[in-house]
């Protein structure tokens, strides 16, 4: 496929692995540890595992998988809210497939569906709007989830609903924003990441500026990156060159898709429909100021939270879960006490095991689980 195959050529990857190795080795000697690079976005995490990039990187570079999988950071209480909404008899609850299996405190959406709730998977928020048009006697709720990448699509859907006076359509808005969470990670004193693979499709919407500001403020190399293997390798190389030169800045590896100013029509739609929340709760990370959006007063009629009473209770994760530490890069997924047993993709305790973009599911599905568990055993202090 055009724009895909040419960014997957194995011989080019080979050269890049070597070039990365050459650059990383002296840097890692100087640091007396591996160079730590965080890919923030779950899409990158998924690609890194799918193409087996991590195993082939030199020991001098360590990839830390960040919190950019929206399904993985959705708090349990919000899943409970989804279930409560979906179980109302008048409601058709629509969602992207990824969210179906995220555990709530009682059940997941998948279990609620099995129990009889009318829950339907859709490909686009526009499909949900069409369902509302076809079922005027029902209330159709779309579960809006995701970072800035998905915000223009849901905002434009709300604008269409308003234009068409579709009064039986609403959004359960759980959109989250990238910059505040990045800043909160960078502000944490234990956080030692040397550079960032910046989400390409978030940047496609918001443009270069928000990330350029962070790169400058925190003096960290950042590279906006596409999602094919060569994109990721090239951007690792760019990050290492920046580290070597000692001049951190923001660069754009993904210029074929990301324009400097972002997507103006999309941003305009977002501005009309969404406004920042005071704070938003992240699974494993806690509340973070101004890290989520809600629907503005003007479009309140399309806000499921205003339209229906949503319990919005805070529920703590099971205490044995170490998702928060994994999300912050403090431990590797396989170092979590329950990784592999009892926490598996079939029976996830934490959300990182649910989505194919979650770091735990990626290690479980693409790694050698037995080897990892042995390694965990060895790393434990002997009693």
């Amino acid at each position, binding site marked *: *496929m*055009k*724009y*895909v195959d*040419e*960014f997957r050529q194995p*011989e*080019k990857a080979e*050269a*890049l692995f*070597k*070039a990365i190795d*050459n650059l990383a080795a002296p840097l890692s000697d100087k640091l007396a540890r591996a160079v730590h690079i965080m890919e923030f*976005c*779950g*899409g990158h995490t*998924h690609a890194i595992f799918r193409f087996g990039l991590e195993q082939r990187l030199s020991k001098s570079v360590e990839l830390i998988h960040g919190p*950019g*999988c*929206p*399904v993985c950071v959705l708090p349990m209480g919000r899943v409970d809210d989804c279930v409560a909404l979906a179980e109302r008899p008048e409601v058709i609850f629509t969602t*992207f497939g*990824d969210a179906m299996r995220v555990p709530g405190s009682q059940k997941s959406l998948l279990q609620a569906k099995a129990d009889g709730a009318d829950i339907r998977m859709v*490909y*686009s*928020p*526009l*499909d949900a709007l069409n369902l509302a048009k076809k079922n005027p006697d029902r209330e159709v709720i779309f579960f809006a*989830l*995701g*970072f800035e*990448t*998905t915000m*223009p*699509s849901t905002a*434009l859907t709300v604008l269409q609903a308003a234009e068409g006076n579709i009064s039986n359509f609403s959004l359960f808005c759980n959109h989250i924003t990238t910059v505040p969470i990045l800043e909160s990670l960078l502000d944490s004193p234990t956080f030692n990441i040397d550079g960032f693979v910046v*989400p390409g*499709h*978030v940047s*496609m*919407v918001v443009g270069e500026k928000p990330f350029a500001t962070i790169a400058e403020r925190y003096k960290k190399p950042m590279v906006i990156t596409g*999602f094919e293997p*060569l*994109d990721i390798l*090239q951007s690792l*190389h760019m990050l290492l060159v920046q580290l070597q030169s000692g001049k951190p800045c923001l660069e754009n*590896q993904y*210029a*074929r*898709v*990301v*324009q400097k100013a972002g*997507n*103006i*029509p*999309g941003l305009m*739609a977002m501005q009309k429909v969404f406004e920042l929340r005071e704070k938003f709760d992240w699974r494993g990370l806690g509340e973070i100021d101004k890290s989520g959006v809600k629907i503005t007063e003007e479009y309140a009629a399309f806000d499921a939270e205003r339209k229906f009473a949503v319990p919005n209770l805070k529920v703590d994760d099971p205490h044995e879960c170490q998702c928060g530490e994994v999300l912050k890069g403090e431990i590797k997924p396989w170092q979590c006490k329950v990784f592999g047993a009892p926490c598996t993709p079939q029976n996830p305790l934490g959300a990182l095991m649910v*989505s194919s*973009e979650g770091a735990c599911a990626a290690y479980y599905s693409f790694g050698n689980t037995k080897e990892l568990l042995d390694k965990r055993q060895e790393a434990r202090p002997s009693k």
Partner: protein
Amino acid sequence: MCLGIPGQIVEIIDAEKKLGKADVSGVKRVINLACIVDEDNPIQSTIGQWVLIHVGFAMSKIDEQEASRTLQLLNELGEAQREILEMELKQQ
């Protein structure tokens, strides 16, 4: 959730609703074009354009020149790498 797929716009279906049809690997599907049209880029001008499609929306035009520039850089890196390798081999 943040991934997308490249497709080529082949037809405008409804200019007012900003709907078009895109060819994605041989499959034609209806997509919303609101994010890539504005006063300077009227909807008709998007026919033939490659775009990145995400949840039913064309989210960005794909810039052919930038794509080949990126590939060019990759080629140069490969060349440089080969030279380094040859140098090392000669030294041994």
